[in-house]
């Protein structure tokens, strides 16, 4: 008897909770729809903007929310709903929302997917807004180029990242080493640091997802001057960078780097393992973007690590691509003016510089380079690199090719097969060459 009553009671509670939730949900829904109606009615009524980020992390969300709060205080008629899906799922969610024509006004667009967004008509070109923006002039050319497809700009980056070398300053000192300037030196240095008996390796290799970060960087550096900077998978002669003898030499060095100076396990490492191996003292050198600076500062003793510029190829050039994500306006937005107002605020020199400092990015305004913060410490290297544009040459990654999305995966799997000795180098390079020749042919159609 007792248990039956208990069961009934619990069932009832269950039913009541459903009712309660229904109540809450409906209320919130009602309020949004009434808001929308109000917007349509009078323009000085409160506008509600929906904004979604992609590169979410709890700290970053907090920083952006603080800026939004400031904006709301200054613009009492605009209310911002800031949506923060987990990074892992964010792009997928954004696509689904855009595909279903859900209300979204501002979205975080990434260098990786801006071409896709533009191709599908999801995002609005920002030129007409940017032209009227007083601070647009001080946005660096690199930042503009990252946010553009063709001659139109689709997002204002909220910060840039560029690859640089992080190394164990204490190990280097013990062995009397200096940071390597070329890829060959990097290999030699890595070999000296390697001592498998002590579980120490020179290079934080990354053979898993994102492996092209290393292979392409080396192949580009070895091809050096010959690379067509606007169409960077090809040389100035129109051949793919994988078909040249320089490309082959780069990959030969790459194979040696894995075999002689990297943890065997790293063939399947992604960014997590790559960074973890460095912070836990297994590896001595790491190639990464400045957003790892925060976690290195948190996890490692001060003075044990330092930064150096990216390595150059035999021709003395390192090819460098800036990456970034930033704020764009959804093509379906009904509040584009208000949305731009918020983007303008977030992208202002003051806000953007502060955000870059707090989160570890290169600011998008040239004026920020004057800031002491970026002239010292781990960021200095990045500034040094941009001060030597002849050595550290900027190129535009191949984001305009539809096949670029899949390239990482194709290259990763064939690189792994190569590292495992299942295929040989010539066949691999032939395959890569064919992939890009095909892509180019498709693009021309």
């Amino acid at each position, binding site marked *: 008897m007792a248990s*039956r009553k208990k069961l009934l009671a619990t069932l009832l509670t*269950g039913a009541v909770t*459903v009712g309660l*939730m229904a109540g809450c949900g409906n209320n919130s829904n009602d309020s949004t729809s009434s808001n929308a109606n109000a917007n349509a009615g009078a323009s000085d009524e409160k506008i509600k903007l929906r904004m979604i980020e992609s590169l979410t992390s709890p700290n*970053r969300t907090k920083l952006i929310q603080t800026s939004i709060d400031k904006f709301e205080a200054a613009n009492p008629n605009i209310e911002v709903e800031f949506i923060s*899906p987990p990074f892992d799922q964010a792009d997928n969610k954004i696509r689904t929302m855009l595909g*279903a024509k859900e209300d979204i006004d501002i979205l975080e667009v990434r260098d990786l997917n801006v071409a896709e967004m533009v191709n599908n008509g999801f995002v609005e070109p920002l030129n007409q807004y940017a032209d009227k923006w007083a601070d647009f002039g001080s946005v660096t050319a690199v930042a503009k180029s990252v946010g553009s497809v063709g001659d139109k700009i689709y997002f204002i980056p909220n910060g840039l990242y560029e690859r640089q070398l992080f190394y164990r300053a204490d190990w280097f000192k013990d062995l009397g080493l200096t940071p390597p300037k070329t890829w060959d030196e990097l290999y030699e240095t890595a070999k000296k640091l390697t001592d498998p008996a002590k579980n120490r390796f020179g290079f934080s290799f990354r053979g898993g997802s994102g492996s092209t970060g290393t292979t392409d960087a080396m192949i580009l550096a070895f091809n050096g001057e010959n690379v067509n900077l606007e169409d960077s998978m090809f040389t100035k002669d129109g051949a793919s960078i994988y078909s040249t003898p320089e490309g082959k030499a780069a990959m030969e060095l790459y194979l040696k780097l894995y075999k002689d100076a990297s943890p065997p396990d790293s063939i399947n490492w992604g960014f997590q393992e790559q960074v973890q191996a460095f*912070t836990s003292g297994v590896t001595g050198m790491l190639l990464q973007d400045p957003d790892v600076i925060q976690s290195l500062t948190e996890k490692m003793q001060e003075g044990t690590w330092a930064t150096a510029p990216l390595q150059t190829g035999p021709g003395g050039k390192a090819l460098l691509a800036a990456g970034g994500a930033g704020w764009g306006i959804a093509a379906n937005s009904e509040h584009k003016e208000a949305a731009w107002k918020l983007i303008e605020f977030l992208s202002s020199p003051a806000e953007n510089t502060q955000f870059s400092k707090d989160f570890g990015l290169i600011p998008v305004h040239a004026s920020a380079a004057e800031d002491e913060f970026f002239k010292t410490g781990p960021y200095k290297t990045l500034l040094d690199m941009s001060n030597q544009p002849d050595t550290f040459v900027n190129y535009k990654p191949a984001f305009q090719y539809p096949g670029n999305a899949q390239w990482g995966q194709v290259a990763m799997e064939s690189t792994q097969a190569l590292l495992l000795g299942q295929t040989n180098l010539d066949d691999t390079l032939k395959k890569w060459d064919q992939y890009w020749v095909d892509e180019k042919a498709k693009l021309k159609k």
Partner: protein
Amino acid sequence: MKQRLLSMFKFSYLSLYLIIMIFPLYWIVITSLKPQKDIFSFPLKYWPDTITMDNYVNIFKISKFHIYIGNSFLIAITAAFVVLIIAILSAYVLARFSFRGHRQIMLAFFATQMLPGFIALAPLYLMMSNMHLLNNRISLVLMYTVGLIPFSTIMLRGFFQRIPGSLEEAAMIDGCSRWSALIRIIIPVMLPGIASTFIFAFVQNWNELFLAVMFIDNDALKTLPVAMNSFIMKFDVDWGAMSAGAVLSIIPTILIFAFAQRFIVEGLTQGAEKG
């Protein structure tokens, strides 16, 4: 002699299994108690030099963890209850009656387990949008319920089939309607099966990540798996926060399993007394 051998085997099997199960948990727990700098220090530390609650304090500071836990509980328990009610009915009908379409209905339930879920995702998202259920916890309760109906029905039907039909026939002769015979006689006997189905449903709901990410925008409505997924960032995993969150998310399930033990046995003995 044979008895002793058997109990020795039993003891060693249970101990070994326990060690294998507990070790990863132990590893998460001590990680959650290590300061950030020690988590990835090499050589590995099997016992932290300093114990800190920082990671726990942190996840409540950087995100609204108490709210996520509350949402997860609310959604997981509600959906599990609704599933039970619906599935007990359908399972009972499918276990006790034969009628035209019986076979097809069983097959339709069973086949849902084979559908690749992602194919339905975009249409489902549109449906939720049209029903104004996006960004509303009801969407998750609804979808979790739907997702678990087939399995729960199949499972409960198995339990019903093991209970002799004579049990409720006797009650119906005594003047009970079929409904009250079901509620008064059959369900108490079924409690072990119902309890395990409930636990199963709860656990699935408690862990569901994909739909929760898709359907919920508002931070105040997010669930625990979504919050934990947020500790994976572009270039790092916040293992301190991740392990602290994992520990917090495991505790309720360990408690439920430990508690349900008593519940299952109690239900069984009661059923036996009545029978």
